[in-house]
């Protein structure tokens, strides 16, 4: 039984992995991720890759919405900016992916800052509305700037290649994308041990107090917006290299709502939140497909309802979790661990 979480040294207090279950849990997760492509079929590997991409995007949203308290309705569109920037830069310059990805990330951060800038000095609601406007304007530009983005017909790009090998099969893409995603999540976890991350949390909890204790609000909100957008750009880049073909309609408001749903369900302001959330929102369509497949013999037309059913599921998840478990799955996870730790004296 673990009674308390006593730290004897400063090093222990500052550690990235704060206790042995976290450390070994992380090691086990990495081992699982390494072994997955050898054990699972290519569809599961494909889903895992998608979870990784979503995790990166939602981690960005977590920095912005979960830790800094600025709700963004334009995150899906920013992922679109990252994906399109990747495709366009790769097609124009013909440079390898490890040059394209940082460039796309920079472009997305710039676009994100451009839309965040007007609203950063005003609180809450206005930022949400500005990002909503950004979402529509970005998708509109992608659809209508035909000479660059190829408009409604979408854009394709060459697969990423490492040492002359094109990454086209699912396990190959998995090997590229998942390590980047793990690093991105670790970076975010580490961020909230630093001055910057603490400043974000202070702003979320009370911006007046944060200002008074010397947190430069405009600067840090801008930083949060830039970082969140950069994560969206990274996710977009990985998205582009995973699917190799993009359509503007993929990045409409619906995607932003899915990200928000994932954040709420997973648990905002937690490192594990985006991971749980991503798994959840990727699995929902698959589960619904399975359920509908089961029902099809009884009612052949039911397949038509798959897409709306997905939409309803995402919305319901937001509402139900917001009402009953606003801290999300990550909180339930913590509660389970606490129960195990305190056993046999669990409440």
């Amino acid at each position, binding site marked *: 039984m673990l009674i308390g979480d006593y730290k004897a040294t400063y090093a222990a207090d500052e550690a990235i992995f704060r206790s042995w279950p976290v450390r070994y849990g992380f090691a086990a997760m990495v081992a699982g991720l390494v072994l997955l492509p050898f054990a699972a079929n290519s569809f599961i590997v494909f889903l895992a890759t998608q979870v990784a991409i979503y995790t990166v995007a939602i981690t960005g949203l977590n920095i912005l919405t979960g830790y800094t308290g600025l709700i963004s309705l334009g995150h899906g569109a920013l992922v679109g900016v990252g994906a399109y920037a990747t495709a366009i830069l790769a097609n124009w310059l013909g440079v390898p992916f490890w040059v394209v990805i940082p460039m796309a990330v920079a472009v997305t951060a710039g676009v994100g800052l451009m839309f965040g800038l007007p609203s950063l000095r005003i609180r809450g609601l*206005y930022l*949400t509305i500005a990002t909503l406007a950004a979402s529509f304007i970005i998708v509109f530009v992608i659809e*209508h700037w035909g000479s660059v983005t190829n408009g409604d017909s979408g854009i394709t790009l060459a697969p990423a290649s490492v040492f002359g090998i094109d990454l086209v099969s699912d396990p190959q893409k998995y090997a590229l994308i998942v390590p980047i995603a793990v690093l991105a999540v670790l970076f975010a976890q580490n961020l909230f041990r630093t001055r910057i991350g603490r400043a974000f949390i202070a702003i979320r909890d009370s911006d007046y107090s944060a200002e008074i204790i010397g947190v430069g609000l405009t600067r840090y909100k801008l930083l949060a917006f830039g970082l969140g957008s950069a994560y969206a750009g990274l996710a977009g880049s990985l998205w582009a290299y995973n699917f190799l073909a993009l359509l503007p309609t993929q990045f409409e408001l619906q995607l932003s*709502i899915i990200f928000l749903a994932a954040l709420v369900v997973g648990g905002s302001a937690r490192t594990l939140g985006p991971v749980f959330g991503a798994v959840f929102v990727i699995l929902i369509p698959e589960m619904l497909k399975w359920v509908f497949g089961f029902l099809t013999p009884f009612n052949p037309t039911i397949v038509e309802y798959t897409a709306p059913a997905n939409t*309803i599921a995402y919305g319901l998840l937001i509402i139900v979790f917001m009402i009953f478990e606003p801290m999300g799955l990550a909180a339930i996870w913590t509660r389970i661990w606490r129960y195990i730790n305190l056993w046999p004296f669990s409440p």
Partner: protein
Amino acid sequence: MNIVYVIEDSLTGLMTGGVYALIAVGIVFVFRATKVFNFAHGTVMMIGAYFYYTITVVLGDLGLGTWAIYVLGVPLTLLVSALFGAAIERIVMRPMLGQNPFAMIMVTIGLISVLEGSAAVIWSTNAKFPPALVGLNIDFVAGMAINRQMLASFLIAGIVFAAITVLFLKSKAGVAIRATASDQSTAYAMGINVPRVFSVTWMVAAGTGALAGVLLAPLNSLTPGLGQVGLSVIAVVILGGLDSVIGVLLAAFIVGWLEAMANHFLGGDFKEVVPYAVVLLIILIRPYGLLGTRDVERV
């Protein structure tokens, strides 16, 4: 370029503005009373339009004439929509009472998805064509084509808007709403039934929204995507100033006119982004809108 066409399009824009005002007043009402910015208002309006469609189909099946649409159809639609608004408030928003605005906003965003998906499941995504209240005829006045349904929409929207504003300013319920808006706990202490005020504002918002839906849907067609109009009406609300009813009316005309002009000079696609460009501009230079109170919190 013919100046007559510009004037014609301007009139069309102003008439659309009337309907926008009717939609926007629902958002403003709910925001003033409950401090919740309802992102789902457009989808509530869309559901109202589907109620209207269903009721007219049922009335048609019963073999009643067109008169039934006016006598039964529209009032029933408004009633059902108001009850629907009350149900949303009771089931979804009431448990969130007293939570921070973040949670409230998230819930209304979730509502967008739930309502849009439900409409697609119940009524399918195929376009529906509910009957127009006035024929879709076009009259020519001084060489300009005026769409009759649009003109009628404008007039109806104007009358309802005026009625709502007067109620808001003069009636007992309106006073209760304004009292709740300015200070919830004091309103409670003075014997105002605050949860009922919330209920009433949601009913009014859903009712006016449904009326806007009834007016808008026949003009093009009714699909679950109609709710998107509600998102562009956010531009109207922000431009008018979040809490000013008169500001919203002005802003609705401005946005409607700007949309029509974008449509005229740049092409139909550009019409869609005008409201969002307006929003960004307003937030940049005048975040409290044209006539809103100046207490925008700057930090």
